């Protein structure tokens, strides 16, 4: 791998192109001038009800001449295909002397751009990205890509910065302002217990490199060093890869505390929460609104029914308010948890961390390496596709050039082309 690349990890496992469910349809080749009339008529008499993603017409070039292939109707599942053509369709076929043939189209709409591209090789379909709109699902601008790569690079450097072992690392970012909100490494074996919370916060979230990443995306760390490339147990200390192994690990006598659940993402969330408390002490935006709301209600004896009604009428204006707040980066606006923020993780998060990121309302997860043991955003589970959850993030895998990984590409858990195939890319 020698170039950075961002790959969307869809809500549902992508289906390999050769395993897509298909249905047979009856089609014909027509002169382009007939297209308008025929399509209009067919949409009236035999609309493609359950195949709304399938385009009715496909362009075909024969000997420099443009012809159109047109789907007439669904083919019957049994018996003679052509006898099953509805009478009204027959009436269209005869006057134009159309010759029909049976072809296959994809039964289900594509869930990702990549799947869609595959589908179109069979017969063109349309692709509608998920109904919630999160930047990046339909592609990244060059500027956004650059910033994604630079933040991922930061996370990788952070993962390597421990001197000895490589661990997972997390960088929480406010993408609209391009600032780092929190950074963390796994702390399951060495956690310096926060006697003074303020000191911990400072060291975690206010590092000098944190505010701006330079144009090369290089973040300076104390001991940059490469991924050591000689040991098979190289990634044993990555907590999301082996969450159940904490009890077997060697004891690091120098550390004063250890904690089996202090995975990088969990620590980063904690750090962003304490930043929130520090920057927006209790009388924040949200609290004020609440007080206003409560006092308004207490005067009206506030029965639940009344509250419901009031909320309803307020919805529209509040929504507008929120929308304009999201666009501005004013420090006065207190964030709600990590709404609008992205997290960059070196390894795909385990179920605990992935669910923690749902709770904290992270907008997008970027990870570099999949986690075949315990990954919960594509490998073992796929929380972004669990419809019952009250929040959904978009997930992207970032393919990292070998030179950035610094000789780590021979080890397991690395992005090889076979692993990439897991995502159907």
């Amino acid at each position, binding site marked *: 791998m020698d170039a950075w690349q961002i790959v969307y990890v869809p809500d549902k496992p992508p289906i390999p192109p050769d395993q897509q469910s298909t249905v047979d349809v009856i089609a014909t080749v027509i002169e382009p001038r007939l297209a308008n009339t025929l399509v209009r008529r067919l949409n009236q008499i035999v609309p493609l009800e359950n195949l709304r993603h399938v385009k009715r017409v496909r362009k075909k070039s024969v000997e420099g001449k443009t012809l159109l292939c047109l789907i007439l109707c669904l083919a019957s599942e049994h018996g003679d295909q052509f006898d099953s053509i509805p009478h009204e369709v027959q009436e269209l076929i005869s006057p134009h002397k159309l010759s029909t043939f049976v072809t296959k189209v994809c039964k289900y709409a594509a869930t990702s751009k990549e799947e869609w591209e595959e589908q179109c090789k069979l017969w063109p379909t349309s692709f509608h990205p998920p109904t919630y709109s999160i930047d990046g699902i339909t592609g990244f601008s060059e500027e956004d890509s650059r910033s994604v790569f630079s933040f991922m690079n930061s996370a990788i450097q952070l993962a390597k910065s421990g001197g000895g072992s490589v661990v997972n690392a997390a960088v929480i970012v406010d993408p609209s302002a391009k600032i780092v909100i929190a950074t963390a490494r796994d702390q399951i074996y060495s956690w310096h217990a926060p006697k003074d919370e303020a000191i911990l916060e400072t060291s975690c979230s206010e590092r000098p490199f944190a505010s701006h990443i330079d144009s090369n995306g290089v973040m300076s760390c104390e001991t940059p060093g490469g991924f050591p490339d000689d040991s098979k147990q190289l990634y044993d200390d990555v907590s999301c890869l082996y969450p159940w192994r904490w*009890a077997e690990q060697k004891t690091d006598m120098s550390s004063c*505390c250890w904690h089996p659940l202090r995975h990088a993402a969990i620590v980063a969330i904690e750090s962003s929460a304490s930043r929130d408390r520090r920057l927006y002490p209790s009388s924040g935006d949200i609290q004020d*609104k609440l007080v206003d709301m409560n006092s308004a209600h207490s005067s009206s004896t506030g029965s639940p029914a009344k509250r419901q009604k009031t909320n309803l009428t307020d*919805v529209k204006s509040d929504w507008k308010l929120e929308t304009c707040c999201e666009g501005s980066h004013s420090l006065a606006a207190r964030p709600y948890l990590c709404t609008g923020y992205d997290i960059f993780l070196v390894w795909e998060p385990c179920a*605990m961390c992935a*669910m*923690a990121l*749902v*709770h904290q309302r992270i907008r997008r997860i970027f990870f570099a390496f999949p986690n075949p043991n315990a990954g919960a955003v594509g490998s073992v589970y796929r929380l972004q596709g669990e419809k019952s959850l009250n929040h959904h993030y978009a997930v992207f895998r970032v393919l990292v050039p070998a030179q950035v990984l610094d000789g780590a590409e021979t080890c397991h858990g690395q992005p090889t082309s076979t692993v990439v195939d897991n995502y159907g890319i």
Partner: protein
Amino acid sequence: MASPKEDCSSITLAFMDLAIQQAKLALDSLEVPVGCVIVEDGEVIASGRNRTNETRNATRHAEMEAIDTVLEKWQKKGLSKSETAENFSKCSLFVTCEPCIMCASALSILGIKEVFYGCANDKFGGCGSILSFHSSNSNPVTSGGLPQGKDFKCSGGIMASEAISLFRSFYEQGNPNAPKPHRPLILPETQ
């Protein structure tokens, strides 16, 4: 998995009642009312309640609070990691609401013995409602033939109506920290 109330021993109910007391403390502090206790050898060694609003950290669920208390306690005693793991394997958790996917996963990582919960968690539940990290898991979590996750026994429906009525009180008073809803709130269907 929901075992009827009459199957519960009085000791189970007594521990769940302590969890309910914790949930009430959460409610009094304008937190989503979930509480829990961790029991080792018939003795409560830690209790916890939701602190997500206070900490602005939505991962500070009752279970995580109680787990932190236990770990701190055992580390002060100088327990090693393997002793800690062994102790967890003797502990039971009593929690008023089915642990979410995050907490269920955490309990599996720690290797807790058993979980008793009140009401089910239809949106986030990690003990059967959405995903399963407990022992009735039909697809055991394995990788290359090696068991990876530690599963735990799980029984639900213990004092569920008490747990639900606390939620109801909470949603009637409104979650102070939630953003204004884009759509009108719908009170959870109960009973």
